[in-house]
């Protein structure tokens, strides 16, 4: 019997160790697994490497992790936004390391990890300062930069509905990094608005098959 459903968000983040690399879904405020990130905060997890597109804003989710000094390093494409006060404060004080990665490279590095690949060559970033120190190869007459896979110890993702096997569907553009992140982490945890019975999700439209998912927790509609 497979049942990936857990009762509480505390159960959902059980076992996540200090020093973990945590992939956190979301694009701006869209698709951020706010309840799971707060459960991680409540758990006391620290010394984290957080991989996420933006560095949080206001006082919630990744911004709260930064405020409470739980983050050692952020890997992201766009840490600067209206309200990214805590990232900027910690970064200016030298308390958090930033690895800036072009957005498509960020996503593809996680996909490479998910796919069992040792990396890839991309034209993105060639001849820019973000390629400094990286191997460059000319392919089809164009300069390409070698990028390494990016694997998570944990992925925290938000979806709309799940069944007990962990099959997922998402809502509108909240899907963003979710399908890639759950496939790229050793432990993938998903918060959903709703549980449905096995067989209720149309198999033609399941976006993430449950093989990539370890735990699902219902947090209710936002």
């Amino acid at each position, binding site marked *: 019997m497979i049942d990936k459903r857990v009762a509480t968000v505390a159960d959902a983040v059980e076992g996540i160790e200090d020093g973990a690399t945590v992939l956190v879904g979301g694009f701006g405020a869209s698709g951020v697994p706010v309840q799971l990130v707060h459960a991680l905060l409540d758990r006391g997890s620290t010394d984290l490497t957080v991989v996420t597109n933006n560095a949080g804003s206001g006082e919630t989710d990744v911004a709260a992790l930064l405020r409470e000094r739980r983050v050692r390093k952020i890997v992201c494409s*766009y840490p600067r936004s209206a309200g990214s006060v805590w990232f900027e404060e910690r970064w200016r004080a030298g308390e958090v390391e930033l690895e800036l990665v072009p957005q498509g490279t960020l996503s593809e590095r996680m996909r490479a990890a998910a796919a069992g690949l040792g990396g890839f060559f991309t034209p993105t970033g060639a001849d820019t300062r973000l390629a400094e120190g990286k191997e460059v190869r000319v392919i089809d007459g164009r300069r390409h930069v070698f990028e390494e896979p990016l694997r998570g110890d944990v992925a925290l993702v938000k979806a709309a509905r799940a069944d007990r096997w962990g099959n997922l569907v998402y809502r509108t*553009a909240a899907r963003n990094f979710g399908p890639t992140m759950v496939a790229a982490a050793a432990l993938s945890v998903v918060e959903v608005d709703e549980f449905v019975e096995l067989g209720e999700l149309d198999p033609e439209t399941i976006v993430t098959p449950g093989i990539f998912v370890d735990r699902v927790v219902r947090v209710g509609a936002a």
Partner: protein
Amino acid sequence: MRPDLRLSVRDVARRVAREVPDGAYVNLGIGLPTLVADCLGDDREVVFHSENGILGMGPAPAPGEEDPELVNAGKQPVTLLPGGAFFHHTDAFLMMRGGHLDLTVLGAFQVSETGDLANWATGDASHPPAVGGAMDLAVGARRVLVMTTHTTRGGEPKLLPRCTYPLTAAGVVDRVYTDLAVLDVTGEGFLVREMVAGLTRDDLQGATAARLSFADDVTELVPGERE
């Protein structure tokens, strides 16, 4: 330069919009380029792409109709048109990087005469750097159009022999639309195709650090209503 010898931002957006063919798949960069969407007539069907996994992106919703998850690259609420689709980030960037978009319109801090683009950083170390999807779009779209003011607010030229700001991508810009001119990036540098009526070639060269050449048939850009 006389203010009447300059296009408004809306004029530039209208001029860029004329360049968007029927049936095109298009990504508009954050900021000024988003104005282009408002300037397309009903005679063309254009599919707008957003890096966070949307094709067929529509205009802003009516007040009260916003969906906090359905946003554009600038995190502003948008809508989905009939025929639109959602997909995940890795596929969104596959479309961008892999040459599947017909064109993109990007803003710029600087453009070089060899088509280098600088639009993500000024080298100011007091702010954290942020790049987003700019590099992927610049290397991947089939046509890269730049929409920008010809000079900075302080009057410094933005069209240069070489960019002094950190590059977004090298040798990618096809054409530049400014408030003064439309210029192609050619193997021999910037070629002026269109310029504002009343402006002299010396005026335009004076506002440009790169050496300009002029097409045989330079046409006039006429400013529209004032804003």
